[in-house]
């Protein structure tokens, strides 16, 4: 461990004496104390919410002129061709919009109507039944098939 005494010839008594002669750098806490006191006084007569709202309504902004900034930005966007950038990026919000209750109800109704329409039409099995098509498995297991045909014919 290194010794904190930078001067090896200096005794403890010398160090203490030297330390007593040293003085701190100038400290000014006036602004900090003032701020703290102001904070204490302002909090003691704090406004109510209604008063704050009323006072806020009376406040108005300093005049703003963004004409040149807007023009510069629009020209820059037009030059770079990025003017429609956010319109293109809107597809995500369009997808989200599809999940809103109106669209969901519409989708469910459309699906229900679709199912009704499908149920009303002839099924594949019905058409098979009406036609001359013979299902190999069905035919294979009939008694006639057992008598007349070799099962391996259907393979």
């Amino acid at each position, binding site marked *: 461990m290194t010794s904190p005494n930078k001067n090896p010839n200096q005794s403890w008594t010398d160090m203490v004496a030297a330390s007593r002669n040293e003085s701190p750098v100038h400290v000014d806490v006036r602004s900090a104390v003032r701020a703290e006191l102001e904070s204490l006084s302002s909090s003691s007569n704090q406004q109510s919410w209604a008063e704050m709202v009323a006072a806020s309504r009376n*406040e108005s902004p300093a005049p703003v002129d963004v004409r040149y900034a807007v023009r510069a930005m*629009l020209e820059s966007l037009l030059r770079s061709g990025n003017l429609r950038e956010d319109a293109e990026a809107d597809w995500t919000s369009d997808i989200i919009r599809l999940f809103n209750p109106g669209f969901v109800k519409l989708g469910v109704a459309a699906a229900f109507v679709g199912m009704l329409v499908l149920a009303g039409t002839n099924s594949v099995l019905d058409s098979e039944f009406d036609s001359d098509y013979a299902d190999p498995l069905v035919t294979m297991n009939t008694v006639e098939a057992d008598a007349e045909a070799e099962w391996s014919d259907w393979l």
Partner: protein
Amino acid sequence: MDSESETDKQLVERARDGDLSAFDTLVVKHQGMISRCLFRFCPHQSDLEDLVQDTFIKAYRKLHLWKPTAPFENWLRRIAYNTGHDYFRRSKRTPVSLASPGQESNELELLRLEDRTDIQQEYQTTEQVQQLLSELPADDRLLLTMHYLEERPLAEVAEATGWSLSKTKVKSFRAKKKLRKLLNRYDISE
């Protein structure tokens, strides 16, 4: 025809055709109204200018969507509210300077405000109100800002946000409840 005397509809039509000077005229005509709207959301001059600028850029991008059946001013105001809402979503929760004395955050907040040169007496209360509301979620903050500070009816809040009127009423009720809790926490009377 002098561009100052042209109606919003004529100016928008010209702007849609690519005439940027017509859009300049729209900006000059409406920037005061937009800055007054957005001032309730963000009282700091530099941020406010950015928000007003964003509103007009968004408006130019969506100009093809405006229908002359509704006043251009209302349409623009709606874009401004959405810009304010985005600003609330982006801005992080900041400590409130209205904390009771002795709290650690009070001193830190004082130091922060001392460093700020742009804070002015003219918007001190709006600043305080927004610092208080910043403890709430962005939706509640938007609702309370529009309803209390901007004095907009709930129907208009619903229109601006795209929420249904009943949803807006429910959200308003809940936001007021949260605000009441917040006021109690900071010993602020209603």
